[in-house]
């Protein structure tokens, strides 16, 4: 028996031989080989219940799986919405160009494989590129060569040094550092290591606390310093080499000088001209008009309660802040009916997109007659430009678990699954840790807290299919099938996982439940509007000054979010629209910014709550391009079942391409609209039904932009075929652009006015980014 077979056999021994184990088995195989060798797949068929047809169907359905070997390093270029509007496509092209990849996605030396990924969830530092574990933010096309060089020069990552702070003495205070995915992407873990090293080297006794996502993603890495007798201080956008300086400002050590001298003074020489690190900003929490205070003002934290205060995997801390009180109350004091009555009274609606009243689902499952019932927490957040679920799972794993436990008890479920995207490794890790702890603490298992209630909860990792956010497709996926939605009815509440009654709720929905039970329905109900109660978490990104994760009361206006929380449009540009709800949602023009955020009013204006992506667009964003962007996403993610979704979205995309390239006709707009309407009608699941929304809403509010394209003009200067790069008289003849132009479309004539040969130009935008005097214009 050869090695591949050995490995496969070991995996099967661990995962099991039933046909529903196919996805975990494939994930494990890919974990070993970085792709799926055919021999391994055949071995699986030979030794398990899994058939050739099944394994082929599954492994080609989910985009996580690769069928060919890849380069040593994987370059993941995020093409999420926020990255898209900031030039992700050019970044992707630039990587392929720099690595000289013409065919396929791997370079000749098999060193790098370049992939597009739907969303890395780091929208606030867009455009983002991840090479293996290293994340680069604010990537400009002109910097790609440097990034590749930088990555090659990185020493193989050392094992993380964890230094114990065992020095005697009283803690001088507490330093909080956020370690959500975007914080880490922005360099938080480097900052944390440096912080620990500095503290240890200098024997300073301070508690360093890792907290979950702080939400202020636009300001991370961020340190919060809490010291007795002082107002907390925030340091934002810190670099690792600035840590010592900050610590010096706040804490003293007996042996500071002796221990710190070498490190600090050598280092401080680099800061002769300023005693405050250049890139970081310091704010005190009492200051009213700081970006952070503005950002946090107007938010209400329920799903994100204790944001930036609690350590994600600290069970005791969660408990100390009333954690699991609600669940205990349910077990001891409340009947399932009373719990559901509370949920009904609170007005809670599903946060996954459609806004279906939660209590109805709960009641259906509770009243269903079956020997077994299931609960599924839907954390398959696949929208480009949305990372709410990821943040909740990463930062508040216990709150999510508590919500599931309460729901499970209320509906009588004996088993549950947390379905989490495989692209969210940190979320998977934190939840798994949380589940272990809960099992130890007797919160999961037999006779929980001495009651009759027994419940088991497991994680299921998704494999890369947006459509699996649809509940019937999600169930199919857990059952080891292709993620093809089923026609409802029957609803999962009657016939769900393994044909048993199943409650499926979104992560955010379940995260709100403990608050409702603990504080009573009234406390939730008083927030929000007539028909939309409570709060909604949004991932705020795009062309605004302050992006990040926000939790706002229902009923807040778009204007308040953009102007007050987001601090308005960045770079003095004009506010054009917000895109709400991702690929299922729509674009709301700036003139309608007083629209309130609630399920009904968003639907009325042709958008939808969706799962909560909120991308702000400015005058430089082309609405045809935005429609094209979202449609290309849904088109790619369609399962392929219904004719309208499979072929219709493709044809719509082709019409949009035609328009974008300047070849459209006015009659194409009617064809597009008609097809969009029929696609809404003729698809059986939410993906197909809502896929035309970005097209219809832009056609509704920005038809003039479509018409402009048909006349051969892209008003926003975005659509490649309709724009030219030109250099104006401000040009100093510095040749920087000419040197960096990848196709030699600019001739290097020093001290002469440069010109762009638009025949050669590939619109990579490097010249515009690199020009020191902003002389490059798009016409």
């Amino acid at each position: 028996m050869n090695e591949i077979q050995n490995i496969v056999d070991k995996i099967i021994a661990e995962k099991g031989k039933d046909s529903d184990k196919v996805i975990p088995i494939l994930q494990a195989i890919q974990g070993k080989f970085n792709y799926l060798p055919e021999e391994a797949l055949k071995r699986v068929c030979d030794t398990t219940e899994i058939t050739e047809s099944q394994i082929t169907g599954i492994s080609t359905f989910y985009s996580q799986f690769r069928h060919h070997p890849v380069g040593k390093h994987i370059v993941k270029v995020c093409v999420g919405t926020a990255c898209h509007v900031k030039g992700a496509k050019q970044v992707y092209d630039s990587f392929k160009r720099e690595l000289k990849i013409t065919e396929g996605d791997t370079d000749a030396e098999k060193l790098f494989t370049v992939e597009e990924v739907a969303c890395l969830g780091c929208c606030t530092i867009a455009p983002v590129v991840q090479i293996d574990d290293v994340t680069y933010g604010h990537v400009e096309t002109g910097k790609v060569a440097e990034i590749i060089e930088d990555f090659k020069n990185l020493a193989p990552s050392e094992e993380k040094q964890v230094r114990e702070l065992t020095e005697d003495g009283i803690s001088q205070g507490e330093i909080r550092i956020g370690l959500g995915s975007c914080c880490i992407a922005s360099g938080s873990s480097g900052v944390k290591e440096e912080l620990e090293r500095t503290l240890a080297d200098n024997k300073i006794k301070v508690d360093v606390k890792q907290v979950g996502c702080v939400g202020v993603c636009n300001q991370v890495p961020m340190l919060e310093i809490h010291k007795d007798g002082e107002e907390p201080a925030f340091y934002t956008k810190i670099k690792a080499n600035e840590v010592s300086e900050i610590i010096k400002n706040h804490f003293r050590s007996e042996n500071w000088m002796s221990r710190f001298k070498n490190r600090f003074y050598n280092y401080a020489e680099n800061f002769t001209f300023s005693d405050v690190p250049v890139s970081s900003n310091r704010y005190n929490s009492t200051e009213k008009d700081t970006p952070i205070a503005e950002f946090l003002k107007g938010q209400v934290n329920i799903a994100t309660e204790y944001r930036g205060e609690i350590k994600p995997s600290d069970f005791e801390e969660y408990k100390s802040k009333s954690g699991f009180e609600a669940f205990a109350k349910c077990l001891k004091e409340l009947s399932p009916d009373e719990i559901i009555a509370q949920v009904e009274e609170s007005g809670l609606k599903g946060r996954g997109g459609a806004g279906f009243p939660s209590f109805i689902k709960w009641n259906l499952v509770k009243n269903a007659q079956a020997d077994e019932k299931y609960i599924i927490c839907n954390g398959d957040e696949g929208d480009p430009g949305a990372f709410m679920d990821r943040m909740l799972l990463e930062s508040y794993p216990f709150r999510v678990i508590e919500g599931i436990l309460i729901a499970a008890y209320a509906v009588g479920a004996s088993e549950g699954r947390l379905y989490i995207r495989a692209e969210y490794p940190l979320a998977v890790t934190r939840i798994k840790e949380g589940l272990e702890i809960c099992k130890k603490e007797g919160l999961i298992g037999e006779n929980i807290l001495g009651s009759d209630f027994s419940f088991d909860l497991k994680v299921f990792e998704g494999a890369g299919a947006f459509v699996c956010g649809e509940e019937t497709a999600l169930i199919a996926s857990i059952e080891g099938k292709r993620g093809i939605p089923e026609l409802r009815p029957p609803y999962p509440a009657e016939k769900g996982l393994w044909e048993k009654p199943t409650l499926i709720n979104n992560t955010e929905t379940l995260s709100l439940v403990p608050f409702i039970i603990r504080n009573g329905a009234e406390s939730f109900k008083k927030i929000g509007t007539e028909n939309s109660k409570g709060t909604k978490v949004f991932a705020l990104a795009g062309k605004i000054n302050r992006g990040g994760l926000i939790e706002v009361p229902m009923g807040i206006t778009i204007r308040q979010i953009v102007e007050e929380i987001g601090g308005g449009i960045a770079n003095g540009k004009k506010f054009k629209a917000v895109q709400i709800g991702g690929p299922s949602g729509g674009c709301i023009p700036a003139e309608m910014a007083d629209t309130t955020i609630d399920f009904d009013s968003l639907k009325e204006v042709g958008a939808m709550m969706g799962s909560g992506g909120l991308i702000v667009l400015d005058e430089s964003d082309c609405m045809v391009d935005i429609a094209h962007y979202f449609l290309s996403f849904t088109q790619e993610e369609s399962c392929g079942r219904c004719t309208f979704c499979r072929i219709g979205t493709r044809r719509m995309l082709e019409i949009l391409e035609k328009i974008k390239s300047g070849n459209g006709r006015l009659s194409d707009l009617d064809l597009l609209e008609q097809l969009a309407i029929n696609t809404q009608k003729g698809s059986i699941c939410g993906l197909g039904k809502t896929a035309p929304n970005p097209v219809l809403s832009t056609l509704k509010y920005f038809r003039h932009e479509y018409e402009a394209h048909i006349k051969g003009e892209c008003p926003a200067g975005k659509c490649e075929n309709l724009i030219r790069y030109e250099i104006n008289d401000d040009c100093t003849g510095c040749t920087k652009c000419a040197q960096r132009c990848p196709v030699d479309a600019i001739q290097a004539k020093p001290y002469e006015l440069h010109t762009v040969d638009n025949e050669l130009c590939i619109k990579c935008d490097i010249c515009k980014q690199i020009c020191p005097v902003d002389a490059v214009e798009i016409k």
Partner: protein
Amino acid sequence: MPTIKIDNQTITVAEGTSILNAARSAGIHIPSMCYMEGCSNHPTCMVCMVKNNANQQMIPSCATKVVDGMDLASEDTEVKEARKEAIELLMSDHVGDCEAPCRVACPAYMDIPKMNRFIANNQFDKALKIVKEEIALPGILGYVCSAPCEKVCRRKDVDQPVSICLLKRFSEEETQNYLPEKKKASGKKVAIVGGGASGLSAAYHLLLNGHDCELFEKYEGVGGMLLASVLNGDLPTEVMVREVAVLDQLGLVTNCNVEVSKEKFESLKQEYDAVILANGTDGEIFGLEAIKTSLKVDSGTYTTSDPKVFACGSVIRTQKMAVKAIAMGKEAAWSVDAYLNNGKAKATERIFNSRFGTLRKEELTEYLKESLEGDRVDAKSPNGYTKEEAIAEAKRCMHCDCRKLDNCRLRDCAEEYKIDRRRFALGERNSVLKYINHDSVIYEPEKCIKCGLCIEIAERHGEKTGLTNIGRGFTVKVSVPFNQQLSEALTVAGKECAEVCPTGALSLRSN
């Protein structure tokens, strides 16, 4: 038992019945493609949608069970528009021809590929039968036809076109005394003025349809313009005589040397149930309505201003192509037949035809898989092909027509909804592939509508390899796992899969 309404018709059916079956039980026709009783994979095609009047939502009728009190619309404009669009979308992703280009190019719409297959299979009489369904005088055309079919034959892009004209002549000469069956006598009689190609063709088809026919020819013998070919030696006299004799055997009464005057014409109109004017360029117009100097004739029904009088051939426009004259004669005859039976003339309508145009280089290779290699077979004797030569030549045919011509649900739907097949002709089409490595089944993935029935049937038969969907969304393909051969995928289920496949994607090799 639940009671529902479809288009205001009340239907009561058993609990658990699908809307589609409920409609069928009441005689309401709803189109459908992906549905098969007992299979679970529908709905995919969405052409069976109906509208729920309660909430205006469209629902696939094949997969939705009736609920008491449902009020549905099936024949409503919105529903029909949506169905039509679904079919148009499916067609936009369907790379395949219904009829072969040669047949489409033939003015007489002769089923050339079928004739070729019968010849290749040594069934010459069957070949002639196919030919004579459309062409009354194949022997004659075998000598004088300008063969527009050969100009579009795809084989020309490989070496030379298939020698279709010669094969047709062969089929006639090999089976000289074929006499098709006539329909029951109708008791109606038709006068045909002019015995040229067009008039003879009209007579043939009228006779087959059971009508009595009498021909009035100005000259001494029939043939009209064809006689020029006899005179210059292109067309042997015996062929002419033989094919006209077949008409006589079918009961044609021929009156030669009869010049039809205005008075005679009026009396023919009195005497006969219909009159066809096929008297060529010098034909009089007998007081019928005219446009400028020519007779006014409806191009579809061949009717003149007198509902009883029809016209075809050079009367309308000088016909240089004999085959065109023959085609017109046939279509006029069919129109007269409709007029005699139902009192209303009828244009010959060709049913929906999917076409994708010129073959790409790599596609030629696929098409060649089904044909014999080598240059065009030349007849060694001036008398035409020998049996062996004809068989060899017929085997060069690349089978451009679809094997499911007559039982393709996609074609039926396209025809029923009169779709515009070019409406969504955007983007680049896929290249045709043919999997022929199976004893009884041929697979052409580009004709697939992704209904998944074959996958389910293979699974039900316990096929070890079976079929599977590869990929997802627009690029999803039904294929064999691990790139194995179709013969490994379908060891027992092949025939059933081919029969169930709603399009020509999976078809029986024997078709």
